[in-house]
């Protein structure tokens, strides 16, 4: 009995010592490395995508959200943000003060967003036509019905931009009034590394798709990392150099979370993108077909804006620079921002330089 009591007593004192040591270490860290004081312990504490929104349409992998307006008077034409089918939409609504959605809402826009859900095995046959014509087309119709306005401003990011231009080129009489694209690839030859892999006889894309059905995120992450293999390491060292800066640490963690939070690629879409778009460069050659219609970007005649990043390694300049020339619009403009693929939509340069320009361009065409 007394031996047991001693054991319990010993346990308690050991726990107390552990707790005390943990507390002392925590305090020491907080005192000496301020950035770690507010380090979130779980992913949920990072708080991303916080703007108030409501789901208004759901079909296959498409999720259409409407953000609650923040002001009493808004522009007539609503904005529809189109995300890349490979990325989560919260990059557009990363955190308070670092959110393009919040910026648009405060500026008086009515904002909708297509945020794609992760495809399952049953979605393996969803193709470029399914995304660019069927689902995007349905979402545009829903926005028109929900807002009660006959037209929409479309804003596409990365592959979302590709879907948007493909849709508008094959539906020139659509409700789209203005079209803005962020870092949108159109020239497969510009995606040099992927092109080299795909033209190699040893790389069997068909087999990969047939075996896996839906390409998992691990493969997508690996192939994206191959474009700049040491970038992640450099970012980690940058974090270490700025660990005493609370805001830097939080922003870094949010970016990092988003960067690895990719979506799987439906097999049919992956095949079309890698084979037809990158390897055979069919969009540039005007050979790419969607639902039997050739995608000819000169059919786009609505006001057009393209925003590219000068240090974008995912969609390099060589793959996006032809877009502005291919579009048939008379009212068209290109903005090149200093930054990378992600910082283009949520980095410091975006917040202070790009967003005001983007808001101005859309506002002038939104009534």
């Amino acid at each position, binding site marked *: 009995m007394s031996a047991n009591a001693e054991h319990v007593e010993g346990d308690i004192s050991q726990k107390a010592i552990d707790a005390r040591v943990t507390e002392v270490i925590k305090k020491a860290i907080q005192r*000496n*490395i301020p950035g770690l004081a507010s380090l979130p312990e779980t992913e949920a504490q990072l708080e991303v995508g916080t703007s108030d929104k*409501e*789901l*208004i*349409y*759901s079909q296959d992998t498409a*999720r259409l959200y409407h953000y609650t*307006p923040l*002001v*009493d*008077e*808004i*522009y*007539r034409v609503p904005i529809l943000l189109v995300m890349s089918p490979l990325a989560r939409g919260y990059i557009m609504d990363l955190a308070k003060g670092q959110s393009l959605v919040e910026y648009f809402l405060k500026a*008086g826009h*009515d904002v909708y967003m297509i945020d794609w*859900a*992760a495809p*399952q*095995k*049953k979605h393996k046959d969803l193709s470029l036509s399914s995304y660019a014509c069927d689902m995007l087309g349905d979402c545009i119709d829903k926005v028109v019905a929900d807002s009660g*306005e006959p037209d929409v401003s479309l804003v596409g990011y990365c592959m979302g931009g590709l879907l948007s231009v493909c849709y508008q080129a094959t539906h020139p009489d659509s409700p789209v009034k203005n079209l803005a694209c962020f870092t949108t690839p159109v020239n497969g030859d510009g995606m*040099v*590394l992927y092109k*080299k*892999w795909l033209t*190699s*006889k*040893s*790389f*069997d894309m068909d*087999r*990969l798709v047939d*075996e*896996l059905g839906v390409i998992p995120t691990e493969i997508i992450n690996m192939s994206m990392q*191959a*474009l*700049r*293999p*040491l*970038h992640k*390491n*450099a970012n980690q*060292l*940058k974090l*270490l*150099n700025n660990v*005493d800066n609370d805001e830097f640490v939080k922003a870094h963690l949010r970016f990092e979370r988003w960067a690895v939070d990719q979506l799987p690629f439906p097999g049919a879409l992956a095949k079309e993108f890698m084979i037809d778009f990158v390897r055979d460069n069919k969009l540039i050659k005007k050979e790419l077909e969607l639902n039997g219609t050739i995608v000819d970007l000169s059919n786009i005649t609505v006001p057009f804006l393209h925003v590219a990043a000068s240090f974008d*390694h995912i969609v390099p300049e060589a793959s996006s620079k032809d877009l502005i020339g291919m579009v048939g619009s008379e009212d068209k403009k290109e903005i090149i921002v200093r930054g990378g693929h992600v910082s283009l939509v949520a980095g410091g340069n975006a917040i202070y330089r790009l967003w005001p320009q983007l808001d*101005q361009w859309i*506002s*002038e065409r*939104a*009534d």
Partner: protein
Amino acid sequence: MAGKDDLDPMRMMREWFVKSEQMYSEAMTEVMGDERFSKTTGRYMQETLHMQKMFGEAMGQYLANLNLPSRAEVVEIKERVTSIEATLDSILVEMRALRAQSASGTSAAPKKNPVRTKKAPVKDA
């Protein structure tokens, strides 16, 4: 902790790496673009797919004997949960539509929507 202006050799080394990373990354990407690398990667991918299929089946059988779920079964459960989430999303959408319909059919005060009259600020000449 050393300030930014201190001569911290580790910080200097990190800054050097951050600055020169792009150059080294480009060199590595160049190597990865080589036909021999593509060949090796292609072969590795095919072998991996083959091995994955072979081991997946064998391991699935082994786990079943141990009364444990295989990865394929866990993925299947995940797919079913995702399907339930998708169904819930559709129900939410339907509920929203019904709510809007019932609000328009009753005398209840409608939700105040913002007016769509905002104009772009006029640029200074």
